[in-house]
């Protein structure tokens, strides 16, 4: 951005030159000579920068918080000294083009003009800017053409605390202006990551081993421990209704649970249980009475 300012500067100088040459034809032009800018540092040591309508100060003048920039020059209308109606020093923030002005005090006859510039003269907005371009505008009624010349850049240097202070001040000046009406930057919501299932292979392995366990159970039951259902006929003979009903009701209960798991809602399920439950209860009690009979006969 510094480069841009310099290019702008050169542009202005060019413009001014063209303007002067053009105006010279008509009549006098407001201009100035033996101009210099002196930065009076607190230490007393002062470094001066010379400049002229054609040659602005090279580089940027750093302006410390205690420094005072003293600009002094002699205003000329054409060739002899004079006092223009308008003699301002303009300080512009190149980014936003925000500009403020400082009238010079000019001696009527000698045309000697000067102005002192220090931090306390600059509004917070400009003070916090990285650099300001200074230009001089001279103009008045009458024939002589007015002129505007860029004379250089200044860098207001702030210590952090002061900077923070001025930033706050800046916000205060902005006031509601902070909510300037323009497009804001985009926002997109970031979602939480979904939980992941483990690799299928592990799942399948464990799945198979669980099922194998069931197989194992039946193996242990029937061949090894010699479990059997050989009392079934006896039971059926003793209680031909209740045994089948009991077992069927148990199965159907589990069936109802399966339906609940797959599609039914709670109320259908409860209704189903309400139907099957009593059956299980009555047939169960009968069946178990039969079992008890067997036990007391010592058959179990």
């Amino acid at each position, binding site marked *: 951005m510094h480069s841009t300012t310099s290019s702008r500067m050169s542009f202005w100088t060019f413009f001014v030159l063209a303007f002067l040459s053009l105006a010279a034809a008509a009549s006098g032009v407001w201009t100035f000579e033996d101009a210099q800018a002196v930065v009076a540092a607190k230490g007393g040591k002062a470094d001066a920068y010379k400049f002229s309508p054609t040659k602005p100060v090279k580089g940027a003048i750093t302006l410390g918080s205690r420094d005072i920039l003293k600009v002094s020059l002699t205003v000329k209308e054409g060739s002899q000294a004079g006092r223009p109606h308008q003699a301002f020093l303009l300080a512009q923030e190149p980014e936003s083009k925000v500009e403020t002005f400082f009238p010079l005090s000019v001696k009527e006859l000698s045309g000697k003009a000067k102005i002192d510039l220090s931090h306390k003269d600059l509004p917070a907005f400009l003070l916090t800017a990285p650099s300001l371009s200074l230009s001089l505008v001279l103009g008045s009624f009458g024939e002589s053409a007015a002129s505007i010349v860029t004379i250089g850049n200044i860098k207001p240097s702030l210590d952090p605390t002061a900077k923070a202070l001025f930033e706050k001040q800046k916000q205060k000046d902005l006031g509601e202006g902070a909510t300037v009406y323009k497009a804001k930057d985009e926002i997109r919501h970031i979602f939480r990551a979904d939980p992941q299932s483990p690799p299928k292979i592990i799942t399948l392995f464990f799945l198979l081993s669980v099922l194998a366990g069931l197989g194992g159970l039946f193996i242990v039951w029937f061949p090894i421990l010699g479990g059997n259902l050989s009392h079934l006929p006896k039971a059926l003979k003793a209680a031909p209704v209740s045994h089948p009903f009991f077992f069927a009701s148990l199965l159907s209960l589990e069936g109802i649970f399966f339906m609940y798991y797959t599609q039914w809602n709670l109320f259908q399920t409860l209704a189903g249980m309400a139907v099957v439950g009593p059956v299980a209860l009555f047939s169960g009690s009968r069946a178990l009475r039969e*079992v008890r009979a067997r*036990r007391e006969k010592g058959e179990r």
Partner: protein
Amino acid sequence: MPSKKNLSTPSTSTSTTTTTSSSASATAAATATPTNPFTILGGIFKNYSRSTPQRTKLIDAFLGFLVITGVLQFAYCVVAGNYPFNAFLAGFSATVGQFVLTASLRIQSNPANKSEFASVSPERAFADFVFCSIILHLFCTNFIN
């Protein structure tokens, strides 16, 4: 007397879960007494297999099966993470619940505990067992979604 012996059977079932503890007991035994804990365990085992009615063994087989299933499910949870958690809880607590219910059935229908369970005959115990299991299954199916 034999009736008393029957009581030891959960050792088969529980030993799978508490292997660590039994080994701990082994060390402790070494310190506590000269008798070798392994022989003791062996004795218990022989004792068990000799003098347990087949019906009880059937129950024990079921218990053992439940324990194995439970351990498998838990191991899977440890290995593969607990998502979805409700499914894990449903599956695991189904086996655990079934285990304790079956164990209760075993205890209740054990002649040795007649005195304890005056009001609970083996058939009554079985009825309770069925009742509880049905509720358990209902809860599990509801919970696994």
